[in-house]
């Protein structure tokens, strides 16, 4: 599940933006070059600061090629906007879409064009195979991930780690050991915000990707693999091993299911720290900065999600995918440009943005933490999109969704992995509809 905080902020920003520039023309840029006289339209979810930052990228493209570029913000209703524009016969040339499910749907309808020529070459040159694969549907390249998120990091307080004399763990066994040592030192090791079910799905996904591997992960997301599969049960067993020790989690099991995500950030990095670690994506950094009690990179650092049984570096990710709705030269060139390090460089330097471009010099990021976060995304061998975002809404995508609910129950009482797996399978049968 994408973070609701951010969605809310975007919604507010969208309203503000709409109020601010009602009646105003979308900014356009004209220049002279190979595409002089042609125009290209880009649609995305960004507004406010993100839109302004992205505009700088588009301006650079306009200056370079001479094309006229126009940005349209669809906010959280981007899919609906594109749908209506498609129905009217004039889709935007390029769109940046955050949900792979939506992209798949458009590909199946034939609305999204396969990337060929310059665009395909740029993707091949600048992205690791894992990222190239994420942009493919049925083996054909359709999209390029311009902006990405890293959901496989655990944040921790350096002072608590120093007090306990522990180092950031790299394997699951070390992770469990560090947790035990932290508990021995007298601090609550981990805040698990079970009050928000989506955070628990991210726990599951990170372990599952390492236990089940990429193939099973993909199958599970389409329910081609039953949730009673041994890999799922093993994942739940590991979760139970961690959650089952009431000393390991803040407030014990009953307290954890009451804890909201926003509260948990304050409980770890706020005024009165209660726990030493918090697991969630790179966006936690911005929230820590907002609290202003510890500095990201100094008092608050992160480590990559530990490997299980020697699994290779793996990242659960989310991100915005650039796709072309028209087969025009301008659209292709723009996608090629977005796939280039030049474009990523402009936006990365402005902060709040992470690129998966392997040829981007990470020095451009404004702070060392961003560099580290981005590097773990770029070098990951195993990269998968947030699984719950790939499943039907009733299963993985909202309050009361089966996976959220069952994992919350499991956090409250992590006694029987097999029984929870059976319940997940039962719910999946219903929610995936007949598959």
């Amino acid at each position: 599940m994408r973070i609701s905080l951010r969605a809310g902020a975007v919604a507010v920003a969208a309203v503000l933006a709409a109020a601010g520039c009602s009646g105003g023309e979308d900014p356009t840029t004209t220049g002279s070059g190979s595409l002089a006289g042609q125009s290209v339209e880009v649609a995305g979810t960004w507004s406010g600061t993100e839109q302004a930052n992205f505009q700088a990228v588009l301006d650079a493209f306009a200056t370079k090629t001479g094309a006229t570029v126009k940005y349209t913000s669809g906010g959280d209703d981007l899919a609906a906007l594109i749908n209506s524009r498609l129905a009217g016969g004039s889709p935007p040339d390029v769109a940046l879409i955050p949900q792979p499910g939506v992209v798949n749907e458009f590909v199946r309808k034939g609305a999204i064009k396969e990337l060929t020529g310059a665009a395909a070459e740029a993707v091949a040159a600048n992205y690791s195979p894992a990222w190239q694969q994420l942009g493919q549907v049925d083996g054909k390249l359709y999209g390029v991930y311009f902006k990405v998120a890293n959901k496989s990091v655990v944040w921790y307080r350096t002072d608590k780690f120093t007090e306990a004399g522990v180092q950031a763990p790299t394997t699951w066994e070390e992770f469990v050991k560090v947790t035990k040592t932290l508990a021995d030192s007298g601090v609550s090791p981990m805040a698990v915000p079970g009050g928000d079910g989506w955070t628990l799905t991210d726990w599951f996904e990170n372990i599952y990707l390492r236990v089940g591997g990429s193939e099973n992960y993909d199958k599970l997301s389409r329910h081609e693999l039953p949730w009673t599969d041994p890999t799922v049960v093993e994942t739940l067993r590991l979760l139970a091993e961690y959650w089952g020790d009431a000393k390991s989690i803040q407030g014990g099991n009953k307290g954890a299911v009451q804890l909201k995500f926003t509260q948990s950030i304050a409980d770890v990095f706020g005024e009165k720290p209660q726990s030493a670690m918090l697991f969630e994506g790179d966006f936690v950094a911005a929230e820590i900065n907002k609290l202003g009690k510890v500095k990201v990179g100094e008092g608050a650092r992160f480590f990559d999600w530990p490997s299980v049984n020697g699994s290779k570096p793996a990242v659960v990710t989310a991100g915005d995918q650039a796709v072309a709705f028209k087969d025009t030269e301008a659209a292709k060139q723009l996608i090629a440009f977005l796939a280039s390090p030049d474009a990523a460089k402009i936006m990365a330097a402005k902060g709040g943005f992470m690129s998966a471009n392997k040829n981007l010099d990470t020095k451009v990021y404004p702070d060392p933490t961003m560099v580290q976060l981005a590097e773990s995304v770029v070098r990951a061998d195993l990269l998968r999109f947030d699984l719950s975002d790939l499943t039907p809404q009733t299963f993985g995508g909202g309050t009361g969704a089966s996976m959220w609910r069952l994992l919350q129950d499991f956090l409250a009482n992590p006694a029987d992995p097999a029984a929870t797996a059976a319940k997940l399978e039962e719910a999946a049968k219903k929610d995936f509809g007949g598959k």
Partner: protein
Amino acid sequence: MRRASEPAGVTVAATAARDPRTPVDGLNLTAAGVAGRPGAPGAGDTRRARPAWLERLTSVWFVGPAVLVLLTLVAYPIVYTVWLSLHASDGSTFVGLDNYVRMFTAPETRQAIVNNVVWVAVAPTLVTAIGLVLAVLIERVRLSTVFKAVVFMPMAISFLAAGVTFRMVYDESPDRGVLNAAVVAVHDAFSPPSAYYGARPREGTAPTEVAGAVEIAANTGAPVLLPLVGLPQDRIPAEATAAQTPTATGLSGVVWLDFTPGGGGTTGAVDAAERGLPSVLVQAVRDGTVVAETRTGADGSFSFGELASGAYTVRLAEENFTPPFNGVTWLGPSLVTPSIILAYIWIWAGFAMVLITAGLSAIPRDALEAARVDGATEWQVFRRVTVPLVRPVLVVVIVTLTINVLKIFDLVLVLAPESSQDDANVIALQMYRVSFGGGLDFGLGSALGVLLFLLVLPAMLFNVRRMRKEQR
């Protein structure tokens, strides 16, 4: 992501409801009709009588628009909901009474129905009773208007805001939730937590945890080592000094925090940077009975002077480790519904009070005085005179609240945390959840809607009948 496409049926109904043309046109026509015949209704006798058909046509003119509005806004949605409730989730195939069967068999829906029953049984009666007591008492105090205004104030707050407020009141952490802060303060006044709560024997060492206490088998002559962990450095008493293993003979030993700050140190051994735990109650147990007791010194060492040599169990008594009382999980699975009902009472007691006060002021004063002159006590006056006389008002309040409680939705949605929403579920919330909150099952949602309608119906009919009676 909640980007549900609107179901076709609902869209149609909603469009019909939003479409202003039908009723407005009707009203305009009526207005024109009235304007075109100046003084027609009132001045009938100065003109000649109109034919009956025209009379009827006029009445159709007048009634028509209202009927049309009722049909589109009330009758059509009801019929359409019933129709939907007999169909599959997307309204495509007819499934008979399947949705109704599911409604009563699925555990989530059944829980919602059970909770609604609890709500109806408890909330209206309690609110009315509290409103009655408040009304009777407030009448007797000076500044009663001020009190009334204060009690009525919550009615001015939306359910949403009240829910958010109570979410904070009920917060589990005593640092944030005011209710738990109070509960903990009272509890700690009577039984404060021990100094060493949370401390436990270090894993991989000899002592074990037995029913809250820490025990180890020991012999006289050799020092008994009791390494503990899990205590934050800032909770070590200030007088504690570096741990020392006693050299005294007899039964002696040391209780210390076996955790070197910053790591290092050997498990189960007294290291240089590790401090002893003073004032721990240590007991020597033989054959199940405590034969001696002592407390540790500043360096954590203890010694039982003259004890017969042999084998003992050394126990760190449970009272050393009494955990702090963390308050009540108000919004946990078991208490969530009562907690929400309490918030509901807070909001609605003022409403009941105001209505009952109005009823009280209509009571003939002489009836009360007559009773008092006859020697009735205040309780008897209240019980035998006041209550029977305001009964009609009480009934109105209870019925109104019952209808209101049956539809309860927003307070539950806001107050119940995601993890216990299933336990707090009510019919209206479940209806929303299955149809719009991700489920997109409009069949089951409509069936729940029909159930809600049927439950509200008797209360409505009762109200209508009573109103008719009053008019007669």
